[in-house]
């Protein structure tokens, strides 16, 4: 495997856009997300904050159609990804999911080797040639900074990695399917501070090429890395805006209360 071959991240389509119009989500007749309309800024890190139970995770799942698995969830409204309503007719859910790389709260390595974990996505999406697969795997392991740590044991089980390494592995795995967007559902809440820092640095590096939407559990993280903040409460968007402005000059009283810690 030649290291000095020109390895560049294959550039995703330059026009990335997510636009949501009047999104309503009901779970078993409970109105969870109420009339959400917004646009996600391209190639930025957008953090969604809000007290627990306000619908952040539900919102994230609507972006990659993970609610398809649960018949008790009803979705109304339109979600335009790259100008196509992913809830429209004739939309292939696999294509939609391929555009979204999801990083979940608890790292979930697949029951296979480190190599196979990263190779899984490319393989199912059609890359069969060994050389191409190898290249992809090494490339993305390098990108998340894991390659040097695991190069000697890349064929051993992924479950033996530390939790921080596992999360980076999951990130590499998600990147390997070459998405346009990266979704993070409290992706660092299970990690130690050092691993958290590494992942946050990766996100900042990634926003060059990808549009990143993170559900964050701490205001501090949002402050550190977000370009754009969306504040949700009880299923509604209360306020949103660029980070600096949001933290320094919140417009709504509810926002001010939340930021000051009156409730969480």
């Amino acid at each position, binding site marked *: 495997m030649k290291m000095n071959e020109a390895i560049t991240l294959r550039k995703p389509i330059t026009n990335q856009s997510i636009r949501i119009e009047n999104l309503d989500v009901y779970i078993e007749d409970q109105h969870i997300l109420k009339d959400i309309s917004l646009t996600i800024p391209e190639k930025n890190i957008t953090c969604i904050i809000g007290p627990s139970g306000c619908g952040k995770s539900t919102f994230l799942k609507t972006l990659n159609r993970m609610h398809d698995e649960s018949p008790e969830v009803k979705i109304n409204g339109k979600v335009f990804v790259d100008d196509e309503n992913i809830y429209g007719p004739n939309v*292939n859910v*696999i294509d939609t999911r391929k555009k979204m790389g999801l990083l979940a709260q608890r790292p979930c390595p697949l029951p296979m080797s480190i190599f196979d974990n990263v190779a899984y996505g490319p393989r*199912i999406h*059609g890359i069969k040639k060994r050389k191409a697969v190898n290249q992809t795997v090494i490339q993305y392991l390098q990108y998340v900074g894991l390659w040097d740590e695991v190069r000697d044991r890349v064929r051993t089980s992924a479950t033996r990695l530390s939790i921080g390494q596992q999360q980076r592995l999951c990130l590499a795995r998600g990147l390997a399917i070459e998405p346009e967007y990266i979704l993070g559902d409290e992706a660092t809440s299970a990690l130690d501070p050092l691993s958290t820092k590494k992942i946050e640095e990766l996100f900042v590096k990634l926003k060059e090429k990808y549009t990143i939407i993170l559900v964050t559990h701490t205001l501090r993280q949002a402050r550190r890395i977000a370009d754009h903040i969306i504040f949700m409460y009880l299923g509604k968007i209360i306020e949103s805006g660029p980070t600096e402005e949001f933290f320094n000059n919140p417009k709504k009283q509810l926002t001010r209360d939340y930021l000051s810690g009156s409730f969480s």
Partner: protein
Amino acid sequence: MHSLRAAKDKTARYLMLGIAIFTILFLLVIGLSLFFKALPIMREKNLWVLLTSSDWKPFKGDFGFLPFILSTFYVSLIAIFIALPFSILTSIYLNSYASKNVRRFFEPVVDLLSGIPPIIYGVWGTLTIVPLIANKIAPRFVEFSTGYTVLAGGVVLAVMIIPLLISIMLEVFRSIPKEMTDASLSMGATKWQTVKKVILRKSISGIIAATVLALSRAFGETMAVLMVCGNIAQIPHSIFDACYPLPALIANNYGEMLSMPNYESALMFSAFLLFIIVVLFNGLSRFTLNQIERRYQF
């Protein structure tokens, strides 16, 4: 590329659906097949006569199933009568009193007991229980008994259904929310009072369902009972008489099945009877147990 993946996915889904539907229908298939095989004899003889007559003379064409039906019930009831107290006591002990180590020790024991093949129970019964009854127990009550009796069948069956009873009862006890038992204990009740007033009271329907399940298991057990029950087609008048439960009837006579007119149909009728009884008992008690599980898990 895309369409191949989608095609594989769809094929898999349809295959699985087919298997699922087949599973549900299988029960019906078994029942109907047995029914149709039993039809000849049901047509020839009056159903009422079949079920209530005691004349079993296949050569003459007399098929009275009463001795077998009653034998099945007697043996099973004796088994439950013996097994129930042991099972309840042991389950309570394991659930509320035993230390973790004792519990961990007992679980394999119960597993092992339920794993021993029926024929071994039959062997044990013949070696141990039958002589015990013939020589030590029966002489106190009746003049003579070979030992191959309803009682022998009952004892062997009892040991066989105890593991089942214990495992279901433990599950039922476990499903009682800890808050309830904690509340009772924190009010100053002793463990025993808690057991009596909270656990047992709340578990009554579960215990009944477990009993019904075990009963249906006892109805169908063939090998072990066959070896110790005497296999005489009579209505037993005491537990020291020989008997002839339905499964033993089928097992012992399958060789004769094709030799006489209606004999095969008669045996299939026995199988059908067993099937109906077991499905009813199982269905009812499983339904009850599911309700209990649902009640305590929202």
